[in-house]
């Protein structure tokens, strides 16, 4: 059951990722493929007993960030360039092909290395309580720093938007 789900989610995640890059005509299709990929990733997290991370993945990435992408695409009524990479420099093309080849080789190697058993984890692993305790005891400095960073981001967005209004 778990293995079947793993395959479904993995194929969906990879397929979605390919779809994001492949849809040059229609940005909306790209964004929707991104949603599929995000949801599949969330499924993989849940399979790895990290339910909290999986749900946050759905809530933040699939449910908010990509919605904002779509919102901007709709608002600006963007159409794809349609020129599927004719003006891309040859060096970039070569680098892209090399990267894809490398990733493909890596994927094949991982798949060929055989199946690892599903890990047995403590039932408290990945619960909200465990994550909360870890975040606010061991990693409290990182949480604070991330908070400051996000606050700076919000302030920067306000400043930029306000300049446009004034």
């Amino acid at each position, binding site marked *: 059951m778990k293995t079947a789900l793993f395959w479904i989610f993995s194929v969906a995640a990879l397929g979605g990722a390919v779809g994001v890059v492949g849809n040059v005509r229609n940005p*909306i299709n790209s964004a*929707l493929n991104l*949603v599929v990929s995000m*949801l599949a990733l969330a499924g993989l997290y849940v399979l790895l007993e990290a*339910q*909290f991370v999986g*749900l*946050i993945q*759905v*809530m933040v990435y*699939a*449910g*908010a960030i990509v*919605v*904002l992408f*779509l*919102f901007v695409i*709709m*608002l600006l009524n963007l159409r794809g360039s349609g020129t599927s990479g004719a003006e891309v420099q040859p060096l970039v093309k070569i680098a892209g092909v090399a990267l894809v080849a490398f990733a493909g080789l890596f994927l094949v190697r991982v798949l060929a290395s055989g199946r690892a058993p599903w890990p047995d984890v403590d039932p408290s692993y990945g*619960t*909200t*309580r465990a994550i909360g305790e870890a975040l606010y005891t061991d990693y409290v400095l990182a949480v604070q720093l991330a908070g400051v960073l996000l606050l700076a981001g919000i302030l920067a967005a306000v400043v930029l938007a306000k300049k446009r209004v004034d």
Partner: protein
Amino acid sequence: MATSTVFVALFIFVVIMLVFAPVMTWVERKQSALMQDRIGANRAEIFGFKALGLIHPLADVIKMITKEDTMPTGAHRFIHLISPFIAVTPAVISFAVIPFGGTYEMWGAKFSLVVADLDYGVLYLFAIGSIATYGSMLAGWAGNNNFGMLGSIRVSAQMISYEVAIGVTVIGLFMIFGTLKLSEMGELQQQTFRVFGFMHYLGWVAPGTKWIDWITLPMWGIVLQPLPFFMFMTALMAENKRAPFDTPEGESEIVAGYFIEYSGMKFGLYMMGEWIEVVVISGLLAAMFLGGWSLPWLPEKDLIAFLSKPFGANIANLMAMLLAVHVFFGKVIALIFFQMLVRWSMPRFRYDQVMNLGWKILLPLSLANIVLTAIGILIVQGVTHS
């Protein structure tokens, strides 16, 4: 999966989908008619039986299923096809984590009246709810219609804004209960606390004073967090985009907004999604703020212990279970009535008013609530532990 879980899931499906949603269309018609001094739905009949207009939901369904299913030219066919399903599925599956009773053991079988008792229950609801945005948003875009487009821009902005408010308003409650699990919240809300207990700790009354033990309140969410209850309900109703928050479909401005190009049962799916969402909102509010399946001042354990003496443990559990289901759905029905009352009392907000309410009123208030709740918790802990 245990057989009892399947029964519970089936029960929820039948109650929510087949009873609540259709009957609610009737209730809504009759209630609005009552409020506007009309008679309301009373025309549909089978062999002369009108049943107070209760045939109308049936007539609606037949009409919607037999209507022509149109596909506008220039529409994105696939997205236009799947959008109603994306919109209705989250509403249907979100009731899975809402408990409508505790766990009961009778005749050797264990009945837990919640389909999926997840550790992160409320978070699951929020995550599922955030997916529902796509159903509405893509619908307006896929139909190749300018009004639909305006509707989908409005719906995405509104739903994203209120998702923030929804998440932040209830953090105070999570801090008090220390859990995201809805069944655990239901258990915790069966406790009571002494309203004047603080006088005992401050030394204002002589130790051993009896009367402060008598004046108690149930530890319901609405008692502990009264303002967030209303803020949370407002945010949920805005997320459900029914009147007075129905700017995305505002028929006087943008005809029907995001579902303008839908006909027949696909349009019906949007309506059904909204109605099911009303039930889910009521269930969530009842489970988090109104004590879930329990009656105030009556912890379920005490009730079962009391009933076990004359009837035996099995019958006592069965009775407690039936009572719990009735109490829970009683609360749900009351909340549904309240939501309909709001819907038919208030005119539609202007779009900027909707946005201002979300960002400038609900968000700052709920952030202040988090700080105040944290201070309150620290004070209570400090006093009771010293």
